[in-house]
């Protein structure tokens, strides 16, 4: 399983009820059900991935996360997970608000755009950065939002939510291994992972 998903899994209380937005082939959900006895479901846009999840015995529905999230009752989940998808969302503030309506806690991970490799490319070549984490040209990238770890902290504060935990990581080898970055994370980390909650709660 991807290293960022391993971190996310470590934050989840056993036996909780989770929703995984953009769950892909269901690796995280499957892991959580097996190792943390969670109940939960996922939302995924692509038919082949949805089918792969259902075949594995997961409860997953096909649809656009931006539309699908709004149907759930308030506080329906203990955790709502949005892993490496925020950078592809057209209205991140709306989505985060809905996320915190339907979930008690939210877990959000995204590629850190202020990693030194991005900075150097922009500074020295003058071209929009292309990295292992964001491997697209500006004209064909699904990653329409450029987010840095510092930006995300600011954003969470501005939308009136609270950061309950955060970890910055650097990953290697097909993202399965990695390490936690404590010193200068906004420059040195490839991904940021945040556990967020409502300020009232």
């Amino acid at each position, binding site marked *: 399983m991807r290293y960022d998903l391993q971190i996310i899994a470590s934050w989840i209380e056993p036996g909780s009820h989770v929703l995984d937005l953009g769950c892909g082939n269901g690796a995280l959900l499957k892991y959580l059900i097996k190792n943390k006895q969670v109940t939960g*479901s996922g939302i995924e846009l692509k*038919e082949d991935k*949805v*089918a792969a999840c*259902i075949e594995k015995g*997961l*409860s997953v529905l096909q*649809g656009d996360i931006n539309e699908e999230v709004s149907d759930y009752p308030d506080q329906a989940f203990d955790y709502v997970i949005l892993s490496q998808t925020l950078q592809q969302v057209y209205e991140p503030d709306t989505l985060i608000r809905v996320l915190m309506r339907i979930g008690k806690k939210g877990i959000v991970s995204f590629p850190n755009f202020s990693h030194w490799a991005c900075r150097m490319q922009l500074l020295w070549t003058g071209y929009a950065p292309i990295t292992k984490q964001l491997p697209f040209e500006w004209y064909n990238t699904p990653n329409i939002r450029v987010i840095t770890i510092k930006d995300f902290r600011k954003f969470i504060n501005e939308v009136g939510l609270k950061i309950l935990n955060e970890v910055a990581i650097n990953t290697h080898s097909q993202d399965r291994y990695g390490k936690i970055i404590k010193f200068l994370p906004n420059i040195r980390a490839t991904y940021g992972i945040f556990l967020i909650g409502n300020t009232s709660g």
Partner: protein
Amino acid sequence: MSEYIEHDKDGVSVGIVEKKLFTFAEPPDEMVLENGAKLSPVTIAYETYGALNSDKSNVVLILHALSGDSHAAGYYNDVDEKPGWWDIMVGPGKGIDTNKYFVVCSNILGSCMGSTGPCSTNPKTVQPYALDFPVVTIGDMVAAQKKLMDHLGIKKILCVVGGSIGGMQVLEWTVRHPDMVVSAIPLATTTKHSALAIAFNEVARQAIMADPNWNNGNYYYGPKPNLGLAVARMIGHITYLSDESMRLKFGRRLQDKSDFSFNFDADFQVESYLRYQGKKFVDRFDANSFLYITKASDYYDMEKLYGQGSAVKAFSKAKAKFMVVSFTSDWLYPTYQSKAMVKAMKKNGLDVSFCEIEAEWGHDAFLIPNERLTALMRGFLERVCREQYK
């Protein structure tokens, strides 16, 4: 639906099966129908495949569509030309694995395939019921299936599964007997017919009723309204296909000729196909049954029946885990109708999976071999089977 039925390409089959009959509501008992009418006695044809396990927790109930019957899988004898209508899905190691599950397929009330319907004998007159047969509903069909389950000693159903009108019965089961249904798979179906679906059904019914042989439904001792029923079936087939599937299957190709005949024979392949399907259908189906079953499907409105018009309220009664499946090219029950029921299920916090399968074969896609659908069924059934012990 029968034109798709073929022998399993790997020769896998449940083998020889037997149609069974179950009769209830025998005098002085009566079955009281949704419209208040009474029916007695009532017979339901059914078949079973696989073995019931010791705690009776492996029951899969298959509910068929308009022209289906209890014969979902296997053969009646060694020389049987065709297996049951869903033999691609039901059998050893198949999507609905008869090595694991005890599969029951029940014919619907009002049908002409062994269950009590308009062509059955009315004990009061010793004549076929014809139009004296009461107008039955999807709810009545499910009520009869419930009696069959009671008769078989089944208190919990692991999964109810069905497509089209069978899917309506699936939905009805989940709200009528929520404590009995562990999981449900409504395929290519809807909580209520659209005006488009009702319109097609009405044109088909009019075709039957306009046939002089129909004779107000009293044709059982004379010539049958075969022309009307054939046209009704032709209309049905148009709705089961799609623009895309017809383009691929027929295009504008001509049937056994290189030029137009300049008369009204079947020139185009699509004409020839529809005529053939219509003709074949009259040999096995009763025109009055067609009227009754299509009417039952038009009347069905789960939202009105169980939620005062609200799908969310209607599904608040359900407890089952759902897997909803639609097909991209289905214009009879388009995906938006499946999505609407998924939305209502989610609002109730129900466990629901949903997949829209890319398929060019229109509404009938669920009857055609489809590895994706088979894999979905297998995965979903295995999960709900495993989770029921938690």
